[in-house]
């Protein structure tokens, strides 16, 4: 059973992420009344990019080459300790929640310095934006997780997910609702989705994520594509674990919950991206500060009521 669990966990972690991006694109195409690209388009893209050769700028050092791989590697490590079909992971340990967030930050850091390494002014601009918004988002993310951790009493996935009171989740404990909303806002920010950053735009002056990866090509860009889809999968997985009651053992129900939850998040993002416009760049810090303030409210409720 344990071996099977680890096997499915790894399969989902390694192979599933590009499908989620394809699914979101399909939802967006359907909402716009179009046929859209195939659900497996991102796999084809990655395959095509892996076959290509890479061209490196003469100013780039080894950091530029190592960046995409290290980003992917740190995200895969983060995926190992994140629970998927169950309410805890086989590789979990005490304090793994904080470790998880910092592995994310590590991946983001390598993306930033590999963007700075080429010395392109556009990429420097993108990296500065990525760093600024990442800082705000991390503040909101940590305090949102703290809302869930305070009643559980320890920053560990297992204790947090087992301590959540499912029957009285939303109405009796509005703090959890605030926390989940902020996690959704952080998900949209970190994965450069609308209303923070438009994944379809190709104007360097307004982009955040895309402008950081302009100089990556071939296999490097394949890793960038893969790691950004993995990041989306992991954050969606984190969010749905706060929303849905997962069983403590490997069952069909858990697998079903996971898949339907992640595809549900995909539909949500697809519809959100079809109906919202991008925020002005100056408004984004306000959006993230607002998210943080909402977590202050949730934290006060958590502190004030103690363990609900």
């Amino acid at each position, binding site marked *: 059973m344990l071996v099977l669990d680890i096997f499915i966990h790894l399969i989902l972690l390694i192979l599933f992420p590009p499908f989620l991006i394809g699914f979101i694109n399909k939802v967006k195409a359907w909402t716009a009344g179009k046929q859209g690209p195939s659900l497996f388009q991102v796999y084809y893209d990655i395959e095509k990019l892996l076959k290509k050769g890479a061209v490196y700028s003469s100013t780039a050092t080894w950091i530029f080459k190592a960046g995409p791989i290290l980003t992917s590697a740190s995200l895969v490590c983060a995926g190992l300790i994140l629970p998927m079909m169950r309410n805890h992971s086989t590789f979990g340990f005490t304090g793994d929640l904080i470790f998880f967030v910092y592995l994310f930050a590590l991946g983001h850091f390598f993306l930033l310095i590999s963007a700075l390494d080429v010395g392109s002014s556009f990429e420097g601009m993108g990296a500065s934006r990525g760093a600024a918004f990442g800082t705000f988002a991390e503040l909101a993310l940590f305090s949102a997780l703290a809302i869930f951790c305070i009643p559980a009493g320890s920053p560990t996935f297992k204790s947090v997910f087992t301590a959540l009171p499912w029957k009285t989740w939303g109405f009796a404990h509005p703090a959890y609702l605030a926390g989940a909303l902020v996690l959704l806002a952080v998900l949209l920010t970190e994965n450069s989705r609308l209303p923070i950053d438009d994944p379809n735009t190709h104007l360097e002056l307004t982009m955040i994520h895309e402008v950081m990866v302009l100089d990556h090509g071939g296999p490097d860009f394949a890793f960038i594509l893969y790691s950004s889809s993995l990041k989306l999968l992991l954050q969606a997985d984190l969010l749905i674990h706060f929303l849905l009651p997962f069983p403590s053992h490997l069952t069909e129900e858990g697998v079903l919950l996971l898949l339907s939850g992640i595809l549900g998040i995909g539909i949500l993002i697809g519809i959100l991206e079809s109906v919202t416009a991008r925020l002005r760049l100056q408004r984004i810090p306000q959006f993230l500060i607002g998210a943080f303030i909402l977590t202050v409210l949730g934290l*006060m409720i958590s502190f004030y009521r103690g363990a609900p």
Partner: protein
Amino acid sequence: MIPYVNFILTAAIALNLYIVSSSRLRSCVQAAALQGSVLAFLPILLWGTQASKLEIINLLLIGIGTLGVKALLIPFLMFRSIQEANVRREVEPFISLHLSLSAAAVLVIISFWISKVTGLPHPPSAYLVPAAFSGILIGFLIMVSRQKAITQVIGYLIFENGIFIFGQILFQKIPLAVELGVLLDLLVGILVMGIAIYHISREFDHIDVSRLDGLKG
């Protein structure tokens, strides 16, 4: 019913924060109206289970009165005075929106702290006092930190909503007549302020309250 009360009170605090962070006058008024309509359900949810028949009629009257005045009549009057006074759509705060939002967060923390140290004997819901105080304090914040006369009215409205929440703790002590009288006062206050704003904007081309300090226009 207490879970729903908790939800409503948290939504009221969150709407306070939204009003502070919003830069559009219209969305401020809409959020204040939403807050009023959400709070209209508070009395019946809070006391409905343990009230006698006569008291239930009282509770329903308070709810309907609040809904009618705070969610329909006052927003209508405010939208009209925004239109008639030809005010620009932005809020124009004295301090930046980021800073006032952070100040509002501090006020929320203070209001939770107040409710912890004052320690009312047995409030029906633990969030009643924090929600009331955050309404009062954030209402003051909006009144002092915004440039336009119309935002003072919004601050006053939030302030009054805070007092309304606080009044719910003492439902058994406050008769219906007082509650309805407060609603009427509020309505008259908004009317007078609306007319005043209209006249000020006709005389001076603007409704900037910082200019009210000087003797000449």
